[in-house]
């Protein structure tokens, strides 16, 4: 016997969950600030665009998007199972395909920012 490949998706799920649990509350806070017209100085469009155009910025944003989308995919797979839909292989293929496409799109659009 050997360690199953489920270790890969669970690893991404766990890493994504840890990351998003820190980032999500900050995002909610920022959205509230922006919604009330109080955009912080460093998060004006020009500054943030410059951040996303730098390689460090691209790398940071990619890690966040990549892990979040794989976390969401695995979470959805487990939720579907808990709701009584037992076609796990089909569900797994579907959600992970979406996550893979999301990963590629994230990379593509981040690279396009200049």
């Amino acid at each position, binding site marked *: 016997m050997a*360690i*199953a490949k*489920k270790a890969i998706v669970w690893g991404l799920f*766990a890493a994504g969950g840890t990351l998003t649990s820190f980032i999500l509350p900050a995002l909610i806070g920022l959205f509230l600030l922006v919604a009330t017209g109080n955009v912080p100085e460093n998060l004006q469009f020009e500054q943030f665009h410059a951040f996303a155009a730098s390689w460090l910025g691209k790398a940071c944003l990619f890690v966040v998007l990549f892990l979040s989308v794989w976390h969401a995919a695995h979470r959805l797979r487990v939720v579907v199972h808990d709701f009584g839909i037992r076609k796990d292989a089909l569900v797994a293929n579907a959600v992970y395909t979406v996550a893979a496409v999301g990963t590629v799109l994230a990379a593509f659009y981040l690279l396009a920012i200049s």
Partner: protein
Amino acid sequence: MGTRQLELEVMRYDPEKDEAPHFQTYSVPCNEDWVILDAINYVKDNIDTTLAYRWSCHMMVCGSCGMMVNGEPVLTCKTFVRDLPDKVRIEPLENFPIERDLVVVLDDVMQKLHQVQPYIVRKDDPPEDAEYKQTRGQLMKFKQLTMCINCMCCYAACPQYGLNKDFIGPAALALAHRYNLDNRDQGKSDRLDILADHNGVWECSFVGACSEVCPKHVDPAAAIQQMKVDGAVEFWKQRLGIPGDKS
């Protein structure tokens, strides 16, 4: 001490006579300080000697009297009559085949407990004329996990074990983690090959029911999540040719 009349609906099943399990109702005069096991013993001693069930210590040590009481897997020696309504339904532990009445067949989990190598594995020779030393801190890392008494309430509560009988399940996984966390043990990476296989820790979807029902507060759910982290790390170590964790 006041007495209270309790209506016990007990599941009966004799595989040699009955086609399917059915319920039999007994009216039991209970003392207020009785536990459900006392009520069942009253039935056995005074009303119906044919009732079959397991029990031994009556003090939360032996782990034999686990049953479903009003749908919850509990130790009947820990479940007080005063905390229950006048009508109580008693069934054998969920998710197990019934041997007779309230007795379930535990062969599957016994085999699983054995399968996870629940003993200290050493790769080197033991120290001569000396014990393996352990500090208090090293003991505290896993002490909680040694509290398991194999009552199997966690298997009765686990929806994943209900769906997939090949799932190693909470008690056996928690027991394996107890040895993985023991500083005297060197079998962690061998054990992870079994624990993190297809029917190991990944089958757990972290419902957490095992930890909620555990009468000894072992928290198997936490142990399983920690082992998922170990399994994920070990997976990449094996792929990248980094030596496994032997400590």
